[in-house]
């Protein structure tokens, strides 16, 4: 399935590249960034260097990887090796390899929420001097901050994704409900579908990256920084209100289980995904587009999803008083390892990644480009790009705290959401998990 989906992405990318020829000219407000477009910079020709790039998970499609390899060979003359590290191994692999100059990846992607853990201990090279060249203030600022320590720029944004709500038009129609316009309606609409046995909301119990929107929308947050220390704020009144609203959503509308996580949410509204009551609504990043649709077998007998505009739709999660709720800004950062032995080669690769051409390719593949100058391309070309962009403008990051990666590794947020989904008392649980977060968040 993965293979097929990626195949589909590749196909779409190939056709989108043709489109890109026309649309990329639309975003030339800042011509300065064009100078970064790979290009035969004289410094890079000094000597050919073989370097390694680590990408996390399989989110970067093969066509983009191939592009990087060819382009790097052209500019530098050396060979670029790309390793894909599973997200589950990301932290342990980075922890062991980054300080080890013999085996470090020269350039590595890192989850945006994990950046601070590594930037604060000096794992990334200071590239403040390249910052403007690579896009400067056009880069998505929340991510820039996540990868900076003070004024030092260490890990820059790579791509962003924003979560949106995917729904089944036919089921909404069958249940006689409309797309909700505020957060309370999201619960009402799905509860009504559920009562009629038409469908429900696929709310995985551990999917805090989706559920956190309910806290954000009510004005709450995970933790705040007072200039010297991070303090968890799950037990603030706003956070608790949001969490209770999410608990109600889970209790009344969820067709997912307490143990499900967001990895299963992508395809949830496809036909036949769930036995019994189908899911009419789910939350997933915009690239879930490639996994959703009518299922049919391809020539090799493997199921492939084809998007069906009649049956499937998407909308941005509405806020408490209408408008758009802040969602979790997924995505990642990218930087040069401080222990690299090939700083020039690594910088060349960074220039290629932040070039107009590559940023456009990211956009076409549904990955939000780090450089917002290309956001227009993204909105036009990427599937659901317009909704994704609306959502992204309202997106929030998790705390850029040194201990955040440890919190993710210990799965504290997953446990908090699962405990709430099981029906626990939100106020009590919030205090309990605040303590757990406080124990780790400052590193």
């Amino acid at each position, binding site marked *: *399935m993965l293979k097929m989906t990626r195949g589909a992405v590749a196909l779409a990318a190939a056709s989108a590249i043709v489109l890109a020829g026309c649309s990329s000219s639309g975003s030339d407000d800042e011509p300065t960034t064009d100078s970064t477009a790979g290009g035969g910079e004289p410094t890079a020709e000094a000597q050919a260097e073989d370097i390694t790039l680590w990408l996390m998970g399989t*989110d970067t499609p093969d066509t983009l990887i191939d592009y990087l390899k060819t382009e790097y060979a052209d500019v530098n003359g050396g060979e670029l090796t790309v*390793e894909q*590290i599973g997200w589950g191994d990301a932290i342990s692999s980075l*922890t062991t390899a980054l300080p*080890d100059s013999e085996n470090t990846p020269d350039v590595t992607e890192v989850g945006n929420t994990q950046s601070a853990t590594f930037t604060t201990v000096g794992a990334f090279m200071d590239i403040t001097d390249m910052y403007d060249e690579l896009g400067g203030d056009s880069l998505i600022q929340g991510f820039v901050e996540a990868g900076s320590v003070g004024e030092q720029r260490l890990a820059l944004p790579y791509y962003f994704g924003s979560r949106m709500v995917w729904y089944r038009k036919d089921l909404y129609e069958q249940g006689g409900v409309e797309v909700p316009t505020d957060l309370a309606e999201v619960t009402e609409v799905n509860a009504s579908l559920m009562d009629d046995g038409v469908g429900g909301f696929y709310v995985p119990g551990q999917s805090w990256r989706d559920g956190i929107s309910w806290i954000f929308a009510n004005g709450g947050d995970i933790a705040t920084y007072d200039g010297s220390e991070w303090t968890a704020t799950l037990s603030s009144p706003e956070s608790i209100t949001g969490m209770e609203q999410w608990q109600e959503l889970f209790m009344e509308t969820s067709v997912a289980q307490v143990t499900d996580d967001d990895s*299963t949410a*992508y395809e949830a509204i496809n036909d036949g995904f769930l036995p019994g009551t189908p899911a009419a609504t789910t939350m997933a990043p915009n690239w879930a587009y490639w996994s959703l649709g009518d299922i049919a077998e391809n020539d*090799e007998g493997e199921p492939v999803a084809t998007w069906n505009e009649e049956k499937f739709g998407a909308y941005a999660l509405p806020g408490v008083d209408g408008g758009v709720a802040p969602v979790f800004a997924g995505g990642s950062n990218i930087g040069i390892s401080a222990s690299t032995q090939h700083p020039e080669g690594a910088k060349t690769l960074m220039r290629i990644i932040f070039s107009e051409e590559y940023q456009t390719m990211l956009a076409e593949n549904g990955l939000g480009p780090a450089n917002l100058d290309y956001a227009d391309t993204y909105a036009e070309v990427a599937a659901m790009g317009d909704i994704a962009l609306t959502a992204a403008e309202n997106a929030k990051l998790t705390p850029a705290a040194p201990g955040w990666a440890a919190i993710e590794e210990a799965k504290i947020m997953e446990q908090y959401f699962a405990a709430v989904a099981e029906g626990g008392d939100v106020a009590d649980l919030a205090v309990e998990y605040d303590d757990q977060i406080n124990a780790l968040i400052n590193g």
Partner: protein
Amino acid sequence: MTTKRSPLRPLFTVLALVLAVMWVFPVYWMVNSSFQTSATISGLTPTWLPTSGSWTNYRAVFSDSTFSGALGMSLAVTGIALVVCLVFAFLGALAVSRFRFRGRKSFVLAVILVQMLPAEAMFIAQYKMISGLGLLNSIAGVSIIYIAMVVPFTLWMLRGFVAGVPADLEEAAMMDGCTRFGAFMRVTFPLLAPGLVASGVYAYLQVWNEFALASVILTSDQSETLPLWLRNFAQPSSLGMIEWGQVMAGSTLVAIPVIVFFMIVQGRMTSGLVGGAVKG
């Protein structure tokens, strides 16, 4: 013993067959699922027999770019670690069971204690060491650690076997004019064969199964061992669900070498172990 129980024998037989089914069921289910298409596999009603006999899942596994590499890596690492470990452990076992020497007791104690060490906290140091030797992602690097990991248990098992072969036999042969080495090779060694097989099986199993340390020191896709490969293969991708049919085909392929190996050596395995323990 058997004569007295005869009235209950049919009952015991039935019980034995039920238990046999219980133990073999997961294995059967793995093979069965590996032949199902994803449509039948995700259906609500299980399909009990692989009547459709589809090889699609196996084709998918073989077309996975990293599978053959992982198979090669696993075979190489297991082969090297097994041979080296058996030789080292055998020599050590000989020393411990045939000689009294200063430090013998501490050595035996060390061999037992090493097996009680929790491995998980040492991964980072093992990474540093292997990386310092420039052996990250290499067969040699992972083999070094695996040998150290399995030598103690193998030595401990072999110790019992060696002790089980009376030293008198060797001495008798020496009287007949053999050298000590010659006597050993002609008399003791053949008697130890079952013991070597039995110990070899455990060493093989441990190495073939290991994945925690491998995941730390084999960071490249090109140097995965089979358990690592299977674990990654079985993870739901960020874009989809677990393809159970393919995962079961992968599991079957990882299990087959072990099952075959077991079938070949099975007769000697258990009798060997017990011989060692009883006489040790």
